[in-house]
C-alpha cells in the first residue's frame, strides 16, 4: 500500500478472528480487521460503513449485500470452507447416528447444543441437515439454541450438554471436545465463507484479498478447509 494511506479494513465474521488475525500478522498485511455477526456487518456495510473487504460466515447475507449495490461486481468468491461435526466431550466414544432416536438416546434426557437454527450460520446449516434427515421435529424439544456457535461449543466443553453440532474448526481449537460423528457433507449445503470487495474499496484492497487467498495454509491450521478446487466461485 502507498505510504500514509489508511490500512485496508476487513469486516469479517467473528468466528474467523483467530485465523484472520494470524494471517494478517504472519503475512504482515496492512489491514485492520473488524469482527462482528454476519447480519450486523452486512447491515453496516449497506449503511455505508467504510469496509473494503467483507468476509461473512453464510452466503445469505452476501446475497443480500449484492442487492444493495455496495459490492464490486465479480469480486465475490468463497474464501474458506468448513464442516459440521457432532461434538462431545474429549473422552466420549464415537457415535454412529442413524436416526433421530440414536441422538435422543445418546442425549440421555439432556440437550443438544446448536447455533440458533434461524439466526446463527452454524445453526442454519444444522437445521438444513436435520430437516433433510427428517430428524428436526423429533429433536426440536431437545435442542439448546445459542446465539453463536462458540457458545454451543462452550456448553459441550463445560459438560452442560453432552452433544452439539459445531464446526470442525471449532473442535480443532478446543481440546476438551472431540468430534464423535461427522455428518455426510452432501446432506447439507456446503459451508462457505464468501468474500467480496466493496465498491468504495481503497487502493490495495485487491492485493490484500489476494494475500488472504494465498494464506490457505494458515487457515487450515485453524481447522478451516480449502474450498474444493473444482467448485465455481472459489477464490483464485
Amino acid at each position, binding site marked *: 500500500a502507498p505510504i500514509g494511506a489508511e490500512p485496508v479494513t476487513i469486516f469479517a465474521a467473528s468466528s474467523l478472528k483467530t485465523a484472520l488475525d494470524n494471517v494478517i500478522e504472519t503475512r504482515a498485511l496492512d489491514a485492520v480487521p473488524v469482527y462482528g455477526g454476519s447480519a450486523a456487518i452486512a447491515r453496516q456495510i449497506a449503511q455505508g460503513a467504510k469496509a473494503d473487504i467483507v468476509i461473512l460466515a453464510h452466503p445469505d447475507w452476501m*446475497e443480500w449485500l449484492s442487492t444493495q449495490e455496495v459490492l464490486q461486481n465479480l469480486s465475490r468468491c468463497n474464501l474458506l470452507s468448513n464442516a459440521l461435526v457432532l461434538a462431545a466431550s474429549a473422552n466420549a466414544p464415537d457415535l454412529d447416528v442413524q436416526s433421530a432416536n440414536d441422538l435422543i438416546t445418546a442425549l440421555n434426557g439432556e440437550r443438544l447444543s446448536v447455533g440458533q437454527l434461524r439466526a446463527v450460520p452454524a445453526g442454519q446449516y444444522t437445521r438444513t441437515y436435520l430437516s433433510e434427515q427428517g430428524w428436526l421435529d423429533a429433536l426440536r424439544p431437545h435442542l439448546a439454541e*445459542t446465539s453463536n456457535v462458540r457458545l454451543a461449543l462452550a456448553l459441550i466443553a463445560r459438560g452442560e450438554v453432552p452433544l452439539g453440532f459445531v464446526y470442525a474448526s471449532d473442535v480443532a481449537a478446543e481440546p476438551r471436545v472431540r468430534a464423535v460423528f461427522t455428518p455426510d457433507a452432501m446432506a447439507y449445503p456446503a459451508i462457505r465463507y464468501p468474500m467480496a470487495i466493496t465498491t468504495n474499496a481503497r487502493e490495495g484492497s485487491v492485493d490484500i484479498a489476494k494475500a488472504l487467498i494465498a494464506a490457505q495454509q494458515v487457515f487450515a491450521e485453524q481447522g478451516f478447509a480449502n474450498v474444493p478446487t473444482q467448485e465455481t466461485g472459489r477464490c483464485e
Partner: protein
Amino acid sequence: MILSAAEWAIVTLSLRIALVATLLSLPFAIWIAWLLARRDFFGKSTLNIIVHLPLVLPPVVTGYALLLLFGKQGPFGEVFETLFGITFAFRWTGAALAAAIMGFPLIVRAIRLGFEGVDHGLEEAGATLGASKRAVFRRVTLPLITPALLTGAVLGFAKAMGEFGATITFVASIPGQSETLPSAIYTLLQVPGGEADALRLIAISVAVSVLALAISEVLARRALQRVSGQ
C-alpha cells in the same frame, strides 16, 4: 394486531420471566440497598462492586459467569438442584435469574436512594411505640420508600423485558423455556428480510412496557402522595 399462538407464547413467557425476576429480586435488592445505605461493614465496597458488575461487564460475560456458577456443573447450580430442586440450566428459571441479575444494580441503586431520604425521626418514633428494628423496617421504613421501590421495580422489569445477551448465553434460546421477546426479535433480525416480523414483536414489546409504565406511574403518584401525608 392479533398474535399468533407462537407469539402469544413468547409474550407470556417474557412476562412471566420479567415478573418473577423483578419480584424475586426485590427483597434481595432491598436488603442490599439497606446494607449499602445504612451500614458500615467490612467488605461493603466489595459488595457494592459486585452489585454493579452486571452493568459494567458485557452481558455475554455475565451470562458466561452464570453458566459457570449456576450451570449443571456449576457449584451453585448443584446446590440449588439438590437443596431446593430448582434447575436453572436451559429453563425459564435460568432466564429469570439472568434477568434478575442484570436488573439488580438498577433496582438496588434506586432503593438505596430511597433509604437515604427516609426521615430517621419516624423510625425512632416507631421504636418508642414498641416496634423492633425489624418491625420498624417493615412498617415504617419500607412504606416510606415505596416511590423508590416502584422506580426500582420499573427499571428492573423493563430491563428484564429487554435483557438478551446474558440470558441467551446462560440458558440458550429454547422455545417455551427461554425464548423471550428479545431473543425472538434477535433471531428475526439475523436473517435477511426478517425485519417485518421483528417489527411485530417489537411493537408487542413496546405495548407491554407501555402498560407496565402506565400502571407504575399511577402507583407512583399515589405513593408520592401517601408518603407526603396527603
